């Protein structure tokens, strides 16, 4: 962190001066880790048509935290991750085995999870307000140890991408073709869903449940309008996410709005721009 703090003091901002405003410097680093993470995952979420599913995962993560705080587990986060993983696996299986349309299955899961979460959170007359911080998120509260955790997850997702991005793409493009070339499509879906589950759950505290899905959908949605191949798709998605996240953080610092919301608005702006510039 010392290296980061001294690096950042080179920036010409008032908060970047050495010796104070550590929360802002932490937040900046966190954003630089979170944005590429979501930019990367986003490409496959949109390619596999899972935008709605990732939304449902966010809701289930909330339920997990509610369960965690009820049981008084070592940390609600641990319970939330376990619950989100279970939810993702169960969902992958049911979507494959059920004859129902995928959006119906997601709808069923999502609403049940939210209902369960609210039920548990308000049990014995408990107040819901203590969960409000999860809904909006606060990037300024991020601690160095948490940034390290996020960086580790980014590394894991990168490795996953290097190993499995081909088979993930093939499964999303054409399951029958993937099958015929020996790809286990169900397994691919499960791995992708689980990584989304973990990332969404862990970043929820800082980004906010209500806007977290935008980070999983908008970068790739904008990139698709411009990209002609997978290299461009990934590059635009990750770059777009980083630029918008930095802009959002700065905006939120100077005018005092929620960083998660500001980032999302920048992403929405980038999407609009990409629609206009759309490849012909």
């Amino acid at each position, binding site marked *: 962190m010392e290296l980061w703090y001294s690096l950042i003091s080179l920036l010409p901002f008032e908060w970047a001066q050495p010796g104070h405003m550590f929360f802002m410097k932490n937040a900046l680093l966190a954003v630089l880790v979170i944005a590429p993470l979501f930019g990367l995952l986003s490409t496959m979420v949109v390619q596999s048509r899972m935008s709605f599913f990732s939304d449902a995962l966010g809701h289930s993560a909330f339920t997990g935290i509610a369960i965690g705080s009820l049981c008084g587990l070592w940390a609600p986060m641990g319970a939330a991750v376990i619950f989100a993983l279970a939810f993702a696996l169960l969902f992958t299986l049911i979507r494959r085995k059920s004859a129902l349309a995928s959006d119906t299955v997601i709808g069923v899961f999502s609403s049940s999870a939210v209902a369960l979460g609210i039920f548990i959170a308000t049990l014995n007359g408990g107040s819901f307000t203590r969960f409000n911080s999860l809904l909006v998120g606060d990037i300024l509260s991020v601690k160095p140890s948490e940034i390290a955790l996020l960086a580790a997850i980014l590394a894991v997702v990168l490795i996953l991408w*290097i190993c499995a*991005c*081909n088979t993930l793409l093939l499964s999303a*493009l054409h399951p029958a073709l993937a*099958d015929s*070339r020996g790809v286990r499509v169900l397994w691919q879906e499960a791995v992708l869903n689980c990584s989304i589950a973990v990332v969404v759950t862990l970043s929820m505290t800082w980004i906010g449940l209500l806007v977290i899905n935008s980070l999983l959908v908008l970068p790739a949605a904008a990139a*698709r309008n411009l*990209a002609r191949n997978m290299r461009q798709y990934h590059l635009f998605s990750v770059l777009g996410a980083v630029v918008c996240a930095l802009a959002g953080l700065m905006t939120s610092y100077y005018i005092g709005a929620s960083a998660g919301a500001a980032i999302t608005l920048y992403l929405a702006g980038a999407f609009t721009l990409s629609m206009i510039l759309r490849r012909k």
Partner: protein
Amino acid sequence: MSVHKHENCNGCEGLCCLELQNVGVSVGDAELLHDVGFHLHCGEIAALIGPNGAGKSSLFKAILGQLPHSGSIRFQRSDGKKSRPVIGYVPQSPAFDRSDPVSVLDLFIAAAQDWPVFLPIPQKLRDRAVECLARTHAEGLLDKRLGALSGGELQRVLMALALEPLPHILILDEPLSGVDVEGERQLLDMLDELRDKYDLSILLSTHDFATLESFADKVILLRSTVLAVGTPTEVLSSPAFRETFHLRLGKGAV
């Protein structure tokens, strides 16, 4: 029941050939196929015909190893050794999303190489993809997006993909549906060329009986089991064929 009506079907006789014996496929309680048997020699083009729901796709899946089956599906090389064949599969032309940012090169890398498709692609792999595409005269499509390809172009790409690695048997699921007359001619010429060049066995399903005589060495009429097998003329004039398609006769389907 193994069908041995035609001289081509008298076992593998030491030639390179795919041999199905008593193949049955059941999903749950439903028996989709039973007692399916035929031989397919290398360099031979066989057409699988039959009404919808006759089990053509299930048979393909069984051969590809995606569906459990009873009976035996064996491949014998020209030296008489039996081994697992390499099978190239061309699925029914899917409609890719027009917005998919996936180029033909991307599809090739994702399906046939280990190199992660999101990283810059080395020239060597690019050249390899061009070589493969050239087999079906599709090398000019390398940097086109899948969503921007015509039906015929997409089929050539999928076929080139099925030929990498070079298979012993090429299976095509209804390659003639959704292709115009010109595209059909090109496709059939290409199959002929591939079979000569690489000594492939080609097995394709089709509903187009009019062109059978022009390309197929062997026709297999399937409805849960093999009802007839032989040259196109033999099968098209067989009682089993008339019975299976009796409703369509007189409507110009044949």
